[in-house]
């Protein structure tokens, strides 16, 4: 399956992803409605986009007492069925990454559902930090980057 990978060497915290996600959910640009969040620590200059990783062994899915969370067979995304959600927030407690938030108006939990296979955040990521890719591609890509990094280290010796 494909999921959203986040490259912290490319994120510039423009937050286009947050706005694009919020817009897709609500038609407005309130960052509270976004299922992807970008944090920035400017003293150490770390840019950290974070969104649901659609875990193989999803704790949110396991814990939901209303069985409102399931895996979408075609995209592989872990999704919340809002109509079944009781608003108990157990999933929010369960997710170790804090990738589920609570919709205070509709009183249900909200999370990324990969936009039926065309994630909006990825389309609107202008720096290319977000990619919608398979884990195999991501692994290969990261290994290549690391190899180049090692080569560069050994060549810069003058």
């Amino acid at each position: 399956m494909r999921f959203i990978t986040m490259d912290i060497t490319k994120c510039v915290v423009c937050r286009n992803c947050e706005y694009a996600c919020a817009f897709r959910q609500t038609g407005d640009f309130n960052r509270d409605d976004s299922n992807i969040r970008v944090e920035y620590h400017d003293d150490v200059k770390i840019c950290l986009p974070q969104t649901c990783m659609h875990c193989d062994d999803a704790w949110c899915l396991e814990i939901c007492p209303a069985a409102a969370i399931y895996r979408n067979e075609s995209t592989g995304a872990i999704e919340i069925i809002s109509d079944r959600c009781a608003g108990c927030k157990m999933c929010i407690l369960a997710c170790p990454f804090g990738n589920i938030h609570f919709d205070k108006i509709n009183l249900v939990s909200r999370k990324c559902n990969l936009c039926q296979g065309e994630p909006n955040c990825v389309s609107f990521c202008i720096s290319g930090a977000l990619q919608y890719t398979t884990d195999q591609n991501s692994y290969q890509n990261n290994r290549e980057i690391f190899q180049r990094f090692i080569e560069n280290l050994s060549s810069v010796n003058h």
Partner: protein
Amino acid sequence: MGDASGKKDHYTSLCRMCDNRCGINVYVEDGTIVEITGLKEHKWNRGRLCVKGRLAVDLVNAPDRIKKPLKRINGQFEEISLDQAYDEIAEKIKQVQATWGERAMSVWKGEALGFLTQEDLYRRFIHAIGSPNYFSNDSACYVGRWLGYALVTGDWATQDFANSKCALIWASNPPYSQPNLTQSILNGREKDGKLIVIDVRLSAIARQADEFVQVLPGTDGALAHGIARQLIEEDTIDHTFIDDFTIGFTSYSRYVNQFTPERVERETGVPAETIIHIAREIGRCRPKVSVYAGNGLEHHENGINNVRAIACLDGLLGSLDQEGGNFTAEKPGLKDLTLYRDKPLRHLDPIGADSYPVLYDFRKECHSISAIDTILTGKPYPLRGMILSGANPALTNPNSKKVIRALKALDLFVVRDLFMTETAELADYVLPAATFLEHPELHCHPIHQIISLSKEIVTFPGCDNEYIFLKKLAARLGAGSSFPWKDRETLNDWLLEGTGITIEKLLDHPEGYQYKPRRYRKYLEEGLPTPSGKFEFASRYLKDYGYPELPEYIPPTYMSAPNPDFPYILVTGARKVFYTHGRNRNFKRCRTAIPNPDIEMHPVDARKIGVETGDIVTVTSTVGSVDIPVKVVTPANILPGVTQVTHGWKESNINLLTPDDRNDPIDGFPLMKSVEISITPKVKS
């Protein structure tokens, strides 16, 4: 939005919400544009789009769009028919020209409606009716950098970031101003390149910089000279290029020798070790060093020479027109719509051409700030009428109060725009216009040497595109022969004549059609388009006009002659992703994300003044005053003593403070990014 279950027509086109011009998919349902996404195949943006691109749906369907001509009658706007509007405007143009002379009429072009073809159409029109007075946003933006480079190399190259070993982003913030450059910069960096960002603030791109160099506003020329001196001293320069293809190196290297790291530290605030270190990085990566000079360099009293100083680095590094360096793109060779050859009208004294001859010589740009003075004083001659299209100088030119006074004083002021802007409110006639989704236009992306076609996807009755408007008006003024093409499509065919490119080819290539493959180091065969044919560290052309021939550095006035009544420095113009200059404030959604203007300040300054984020302060310069909320940023973001306000907000219009009489002497660009101000608290929030 979201899943495409409804029946939708699909078009490919290009976005014009800013100047990046990304490839887009446009979806139409029942004649209405309902969705816009990034076009995956387009070579420029490769499917990525910023939120503004999506907001074009709001733009084209906006309920507050002007759809009928408005005429000011007894101080109120009343709707009239399009024919009546064009008839009356033509009559009044004739009156103005009969009473005050043909050159009393002028045009002023902005960027809200179209781009390069639009510019040439207005140049053509104004000359066709006998006046040389073409004004545009370019006498306060972009051309400063273009000239700074052209005075050295004859042109302004693009940046081959994708192949670069060292990307130097200087006074620019691509994620918000040129979003696609962000992709290229970071892809290049991924291949073990280096990213150096030089700016007064910690911008979005600076967050990814390997080196973030924070400078005091307006001191970039000194830093560039300091880097140059270090490169020369360590001999990390391209001797072959310097010896064979440049002039003036001896006097230039003698001049920059005074910019020792210690001196540059005093001038710029950048530590001496940092200057040495980045010069070493840049020297090591030569010639694959790509430098992007941003708008942040232009708006200073010494702006041009600051840009020239940076442009000179290409000569030392040998990076001009190199792979991974600053690549000089070739043009597709479109036909020239302007009349400068057939009807130059130089003898009619285009406004500003005497004060800023370099601006006029190179770009045929009249000086918009001088236009304001001319309207008000009648000197050197009366300027009484203006047609203004897609621009908002009442909000975005310096010294707004004076601009408003001048535009009100015109005998005939016609504004074409999509919305009732602050400038349109001053007009005698306001005419509806067409968005970029309503007419076909040719777009070039020089870095890939591709040309693309944007499309007429929807139209609204009465919203003529720029060509049709000028054609109809010209016909009423006896200048119809200058606008012979039936429509915009026929015009596009004509523009492409002789290039071997046809509209059919462009339709077959929505990803962009490459008109020429890249060639590097063209100067080996063709020389450079400078007076000497070479890279000019020293400019004889400038010397002949009485300017220094070297890019001499002059410190900004706030440093050389500080005014104790105005102890802080104001930078303006930092971009925001939702807004382009004065545009998009009328979209409610944008206000959810970025609801109001603010003045960014360092915590030390906020404490000194006694304010916190949200408090209102009164900001004052020698020109004027404005109230604005405070935003205290983190210490890493901005230097103490320096503040930033983004322009284009009518509720806190920072151009009430910017001066129009402290311009760069060579290109006439206004001082907008190192203005002396005082700040006092107004109200506790």
